């Protein structure tokens, strides 16, 4: 309702608005459009100093072909998936349970525990860096995907628990009371009553955590090195070192690294936004 709906304005204003939208969008996405353009230009364009014209010939197949068949990129992508998927599942599983406990039961430590999860979720990564790296080394998990996954699960549990607890608080409590009166065991209430109602929250968190973890760079650098376990965010720097100044290839690499979360977002938009707004802004 605010600002004034455009359909109530004059015809000219409406046409002006419709025309302004694509212009504003192109301006907003200009840096990305540039990279997309670079990624389909042939190498020859760059050697002749032609940066900003349309590609002289379509070099997309060759550039992306190099990324996929002539570099460690597929390896990095696979690592990213092997890190991201278990983390999303693990963190969501832990937080479903924790959120259930904090959202349904009343006990003295409840609010304190909840605040502990919330506070932990906001701490700067650097305060954890030295001890977590040390712990991972001690466990023999340095430079493994498992080491990275375990840490990510733990850290994301903070955010996920915040989300789940608030979501469960919003569920109709009489439902649980009714089950209790029927003599249903508490864990069965979780599995058969609460869990089915949590599906939208679970979907939202899965999508969100997938994106967060896919895009993580700091912990990838701290806890892994080398192509056997590094995810694509860290891998792209070595990729770029390999193709120093080959901007068409670096652009293609960047597009490939960015694509999976983008695809995820477009497929699961509704859930994604529900997750981002913490379910608090309806």
């Amino acid at each position, binding site marked *: 309702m605010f600002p004034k709906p455009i359909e109530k304005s004059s015809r000219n204003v409406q046409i002006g608005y419709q025309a302004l939208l694509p212009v504003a969008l192109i301006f907003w996405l200009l840096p990305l459009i540039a990279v997309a353009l670079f990624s389909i230009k042939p190498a020859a364009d760059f050697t002749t100093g032609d940066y900003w014209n349309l590609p002289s010939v379509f070099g997309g197949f060759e550039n992306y072909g190099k990324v996929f068949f002539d570099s460690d990129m597929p390896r990095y992508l696979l690592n990213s998936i092997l890190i991201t998927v278990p983390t999303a599942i693990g963190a969501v599983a832990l937080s479903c349970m924790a959120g259930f406990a904090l959202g349904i039961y009343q006990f003295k430590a409840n609010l304190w525990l909840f605040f502990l999860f919330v506070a932990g979720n906001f701490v700067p990564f650097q305060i954890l860096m*030295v*001890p977590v790296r040390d712990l991972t080394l001690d466990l023999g998990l340095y430079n493994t995907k498992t080491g990275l996954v375990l840490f990510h699960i733990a850290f994301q*549990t903070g955010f996920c628990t915040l989300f789940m607890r608030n979501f469960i608080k919003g569920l109709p409590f009489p439902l649980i009371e009714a089950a209790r009166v029927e003599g249903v065991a508490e864990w069965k209430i979780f599995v058969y009553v609460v869990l089915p109602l949590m599906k939208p929250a679970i979907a939202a968190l899965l999508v969100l955590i997938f994106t967060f973890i896919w895009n993580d*760079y700091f912990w990838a650098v701290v806890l892994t090195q080398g192509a056997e376990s590094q995810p694509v965010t860290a891998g792209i*720097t070595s990729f770029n070192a390999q193709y120093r100044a080959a901007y068409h290839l670096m652009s293609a690499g960047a597009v490939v690294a*960015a694509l999976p979360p983008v695809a995820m977002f477009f497929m699961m938009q509704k859930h994604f936004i529900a997750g981002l707004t913490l379910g608090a*802004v*309806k």
Partner: protein
Amino acid sequence: MTTPALPQTEYEPPRRSWYKRNEIAITPWLFLLPAILFFMVYVIIPIFQSFTVSTVAWDGLGEKEFVGLDNYRELLDDPAFWTSLRNNLIWLLLYLLAIPAGLFIALFLNQTVTGIRIYKSLFFFPFVISQVVVGLVFSWFYDPTFGLLNAILGFVGLGPINVLGDPTYVTYGIIAAGLWPQTAYCMILYLTGLNAVDPEQVEAARLDGAKGWKMLWYVIVPQLKPATFIAFVVTIVGALRSFDLISIMTNGGPFGESRVLSFYMFEVALSEYGFRMGYGAAIAVVLFLIMLCFIAYFLYSMYKEEKGH
């Protein structure tokens, strides 16, 4: 514990197990156990360990040597630390621009014309891609020889500037790159918030003659308070977490002018400076204490909210 004791009746089957009798009290702890375990081991305990590490000299492998507050004393005389701290403040202040900018774009897009959904998602795009890619994209955008920025500047007759190579511009250049996804995030928060604005209030205010800025400030913005709060929280956290962009775009340079505490800490503890874990931990503690002020405020707000219900 706090479970009200059920009056014992004779109909109660006598062989109810201890677990059954205390089910309501025990179940939450069983459900919390794995989450608490993980969170303690990887998040809460490491915070305290970092405080301990900050009082030793340690290369990460050999013996730890207790040095008391020496690391902190050294910080006071370390110009790189002060540069980082100053840059952190600049980040915090300028990053907040994402909130009004996000609101502005949300208002611009809050219409119902055909295809607006696609526009909304495309405007949100920058937030979904990783900061590493954002950093790469912007360092090419700023590139003095072929970057789009200088192509545009050249077009209007302004000389090429090397944003990332110039100590005065570099931090602002990186912040601009960071503001791009952050504004998109704030925009989506406000777009969802605007959906919940009460149309009757808007109509009533309109009848009273409110419009434009007045309407925005006195009628709309107060109703967007929950969205603003979340936008504030995520923006502050984002500003203090700035690491990826700096690492990708400048690696702290030129002359260390684009460092912030989170980056400097990493540099000291895990890179060319040799492995000075203790000194790095001291920097992390300073960063943590800054964040703690905000965390206290966030929790206080949430606490008031909880009690309100």
